[in-house]
């Protein structure tokens, strides 16, 4: 998405397209990424429940992963995961 110049901004920065927040990829903020160890994962879904971004999804096999377009790397999933199945790994 090309960044607009100051002249192109709408008056008062009103956003006229509903639901357009999904175009904003908060994944660019991330400095650590969650990595699931499916050997330890018991598919309880607590990561899914606690993710403040709503970006943790359950796959068809029942295991979880985060949508890296939106995952900010906050680490709440790893903190809440009581079987310790999620590790936060530094981004390169």
């Amino acid at each position, binding site marked *: 998405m090309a*960044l607009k110049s100051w002249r192109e901004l709408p008056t008062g920065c009103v956003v006229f397209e509903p639901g357009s927040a999904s175009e904003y990829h908060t994944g660019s903020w991330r400095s650590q990424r969650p990595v699931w160890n499916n050997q330890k994962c018991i598919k309880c879904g607590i990561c899914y429940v606690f993710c403040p971004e709503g970006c943790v999804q359950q796959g068809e096999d029942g295991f979880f992963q985060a949508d890296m377009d939106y995952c900010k790397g906050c680490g709440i999933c790893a903190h809440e995961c009581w079987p310790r199945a999620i590790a936060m790994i530094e981004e390169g």
Partner: protein
Amino acid sequence: MAKRIGMEVAVAVAEAVGLCDIDMAAVYPITPQSHIAEHLSDLVADGKIDAEFVTVESEHSAMSAVIGASGAGARSYTATSSQGLMYMHELLPIASAMRLPITMAIANRAVSGPLNILNDHSDIMPQRDSGWISIFVENAQEAIDMSIIAFKIAENKDVMLPVNINIDGFQLTHMVEPFEMPTQEEVRNFLPPFVPHATLHPAKPVTMGAFAMSDYFPEIMKAKDEALKNSKKIILEVWDEWAKMFGRAYKPVETYKAEDAEVLMLTMGSMGETAQMAIDELRAKGVKAGLVKLRLWRPFPFAEIKAAVKNAKKLIVTDRAVSFGGPGGPVFSEVKSALYAEAQRPVIYDYIYGLGGRDVPVGDFVGMFERVLADTANKEVDTYEFWGVRE
């Protein structure tokens, strides 16, 4: 032509706002603004105007309510003073960033502490950088005219910015002065219905006041600065239009006997009328004294100020607020900075006066001129002094 009547200025301001077809007002009473709040509330309660009067529990809520109402497309009004304005402070830049054409009267009063209910400009000065159009008035007629004009300026599609009108507390709000009140029909002819640039409506969802990070924040600040600077053109146009309809012309900078003046004084607000009497007294003694009145504080009228003072040898800037530990009063630093690059400019003095309602009679203004005239070697230039403070 409207008939000349006398009325307390605060009540007259509420009457004038009542002619402007407002949709809502959210006003929390505070001395010396209370009579505006009370009378506007009366107008609504008595069914004289068709508007919602929201009885909020604080000034923070008053500003929040008018922001919400303006966002929904309502012509929205509020008024406050001193601590109330300080309490609104965090919301003021939001109203301007969202480009909401809110109109607010400020009955200027000293900010605590110590607690003081009387007049100076220490409430508006900390709001200087909030992105509002800021106008100072000198008398009842100006207070009434600007209360009506402000809506038209604010709501112009090329402006869409909030406006505050500064009316000296007590010294102006509580005076009974003669003025001409425009008729309902005249105001209707002058002020078209409000057409918002966007509205909050469930049928057409929009987001107002969205979050912005470092990738957009500087562009948004630049756009806001340009919007405020560009508003001056419209302000001048609307004032011209008012002059054509009502015969009263307004300029960002007014002058009085300034053309050939060697020593000029600059005032803001109601003190201008007293200073004007001092000019007459000095002129009668053969002193080439003149007055410059700054009406438009934001956007700051650089060209007009430069033109008004360029031929004077000395300029006395008067301030009614203090920038503690700073370079002088806020008006002084602004005027000095405006003249910095000018090849031809007067030497500038700053007197901080009339704080917390301290009376400043004509003789004090004469005294300021005499002090400056006696300073032939320009030794007292470039600094500031608290005028009349006991040593």
